[in-house]
């Protein structure tokens, strides 16, 4: 009696129960982990695969189209993965910039008083939000391959740019001696406009007098590098593409895979960003606009100084997750053969059979990219956040 009574008390003691539940979960986890690991070791031994990351220093033996760093078939698997990672970062960064521009334009367009513009933006958002990104990528890729002309009949655009179904060919800049001075001039201009902005802010805080910071900065950024450029004797030349019998010669090429992937990711993500921007602007109370008008601010100053800073607080957290989604969706590159991290890793996986290692590298890399992006956006967010007492 007393034994069962104390047992029942023990059973209903929250502390004991909590500990027991957690211990059970840990034991269960360890059992599954042990089982999985032992199966893995047996299976790998039977398939004659040596686990470990030694394969990274072995010869890759496959080519990658247009690598960003020196790479050829004799390079190592590790270097191939770095090439893939750089391609991923390239398309992700370009996509983030492009989708932000398009997204903000469409989001503001949907709020326009112009009925036609608002409707066109709505149709855009509703179309792209309800399509799988993979389908958009295929559609653009096949569209570029099918509907752009052969290299022989390339479409000629201004500034020596050619467009055909092998991609965009544009004049390749060749930097000569003295270009370093121009780069230094750019840095000086950036620093000067930064200092001017700081001075203008301090003066406005002290005296209330305003200063045209934007135009001063533009002046610095255009004039100083231009003077340096002319002063050093135009240290830049261009390798212009020329139309040969069958193909374009010279110039630099951006392949159709990159263009299709970049456009598809940007257009798809822009439809989400547009909605985020729209809800952010609508989320700023009407009273804020009215109060700012009552204080005599012009409509553009109202937008710039009152509405947008508050809208940004609403916009930034969901915008971060869209940027992360874009980065992760760039892994769909494998479907059209753009050599990003996943596509290169897939080739290595097929060649070596090191499935566990390759997938671990993938996951670790994307986790790091995600963490880096969200760390940056969290910093930006805390800078923009409401300062309360």
């Amino acid at each position, binding site marked *: 009696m007393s034994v069962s009574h104390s047992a029942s008390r023990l059973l209903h003691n929250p502390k004991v129960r*909590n500990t027991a539940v957690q211990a059970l979960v840990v034991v269960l986890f360890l059992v599954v982990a042990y089982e999985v690991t032992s199966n893995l070791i*047996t299976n790998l031994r039977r398939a004659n695969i040596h686990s470990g990351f030694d394969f990274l220093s072995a010869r890759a033996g496959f080519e990658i189209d247009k690598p960003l760093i020196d790479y050829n078939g004799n390079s190592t698997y590790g270097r191939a993965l770095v090439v893939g990672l750089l391609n991923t970062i390239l398309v992700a960064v370009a996509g983030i910039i492009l989708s932000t521009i398009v997204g903000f334009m469409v989001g503001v367009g949907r709020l326009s008083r112009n009925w036609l513009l608002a409707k066109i933006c709505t149709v855009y958002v509703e179309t792209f*939000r309800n399509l799988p990104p*993979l389908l958009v990528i295929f559609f653009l890729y096949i569209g570029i391959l099918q509907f752009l002309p052969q290299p022989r009949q390339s479409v000629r655009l201004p500034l020596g740019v050619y467009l055909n179904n092998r991609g965009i060919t544009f004049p390749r800049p060749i930097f000569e001696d003295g270009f370093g001075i121009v780069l230094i001039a750019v840095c000086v201009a950036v620093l000067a406009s930064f200092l001017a902005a700081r001075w203008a802010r301090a003066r406005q805080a002290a005296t209330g007098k305003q200063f045209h910071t934007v135009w001063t900065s533009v002046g610095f950024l255009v004039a100083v590098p231009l003077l340096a450029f002319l002063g050093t004797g135009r240290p830049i030349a261009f390798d212009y593409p020329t139309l040969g019998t069958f193909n374009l010669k010279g110039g630099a090429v951006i392949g159709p895979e990159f263009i299709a992937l970049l456009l598809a990711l940007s257009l798809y993500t822009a439809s989400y960003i547009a909605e985020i921007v729209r809800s952010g602007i609508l989320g700023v109370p009407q009273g804020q606009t009215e109060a700012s008008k009552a204080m005599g601010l012009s409509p553009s100053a109202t937008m710039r100084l009152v509405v947008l800073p508050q809208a940004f607080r609403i916009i930034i957290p969901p915008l971060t997750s869209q940027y992360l989604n874009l980065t992760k969706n760039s892994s769909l590159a494998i479907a059209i053969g753009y050599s990003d991290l996943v596509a290169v890793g897939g080739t290595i996986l097929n060649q070596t059979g090191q*499935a566990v290692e390759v997938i671990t590298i*993938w996951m670790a890399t994307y986790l790091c990219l*995600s963490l880096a992006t969200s760390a940056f956006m969290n910093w930006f967010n805390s800078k923009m956040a409401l300062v309360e007492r």
Partner: protein
Amino acid sequence: MDSRFVRDVMLTAEPPPLRQRGFPVWIRHNLFASTTDSLVTLVCILALAYVVPTLLNWLFIQAAWTGSDRSFCATAVQGGIQPDDWSGACWAFVRAKFSQFIFGRYPIDQRWRPMLVGILLILLVLPFLTPYAPRKNLNALLLFIALPVVSFFLLYGGFGLPVVETERWGGLMVTLILSFVGITVSLPLGILLALGRRSRLPVIRLFSTTFIEVLRGVPLITVLFMASVMLPLFLPDGMDIDKLLRAIVGVSIFASAYMAEVIRGGLQAIPKGQSEGADSLGLTYWKKMYLIILPQAIKLVVPGIVNTFIGMFKDSSLISIIGMFDLLGIVRFNFSDPSWATPVTPVSGLLFAGFVFWIFCFGMSRYSGFLERHLDTGHRR
């Protein structure tokens, strides 16, 4: 003399003056309010005047609606019957392959089975989605427990029906199966994960948080590769899991991590007093959650839940990368059919697939808007 006047008859309201109403005024206010506005409108009209007729022409007027092989969609140079400057959609291709796009390579004489499952699904889903239809519990039981079991035997075989291997399943059918199972699994799993992440037990919290954050940090395609390449390595010798099932597991656990974060958002929005009130009534943890917290939390995040469903429906197209034939996969598979290969075939096929995906996703998002308004009981603060 009496100068008092009290109106005892109200005058009827006059319509606004002619200059303030009607179509011209609407146009002036909405399209030509200012110089910039007029310019924008003109640019839009010009763009539309170029794009819309071109599109309509390509999609409908020039399109090859009927035909039995590629010659109907190819110009004379490409070996077809169309004039040299012809370009239009090849709907004949979509018509010829339509049943394959829906059922994949499911044996033709057995296709009544997926059709029957489809009819059962519609019969059970429609009343489930209609708020005023009676017997919701029974309906849910049939839809989420009975239907999957019946469907499995109908689609796979058994009880006298010949077995159809999952390799032969494909098309829209697989997309819908994947999404349905994913939705049914990810919601409860997501709720458990969200509760685990907010649990007071540190071990449970750690496991749930790690699981959610890792899955949300990686692309779905790596999870699918893991399910298709790595999972067999984890299993004991001789044990094999069906390829389709592996994909379903991958998509479901991926979606459940996103679902968990949506539900957690709802849980965080419920005031602490609700939980304390339930505690003071002596409810156990599970009763408190089931009766008090979750009903309120889930109601708050219906749009987020439906968005996750839409995301999963779209993501299901990724299984075509690991060699399975969902709707997008089977459409792409048919591009290489030599009897239909023309320059316009791929774009036409993708347009069809895109149209189907769009209809489903748009329908879901519209339903979510309706549900949101229906569930809004005015308790917003």
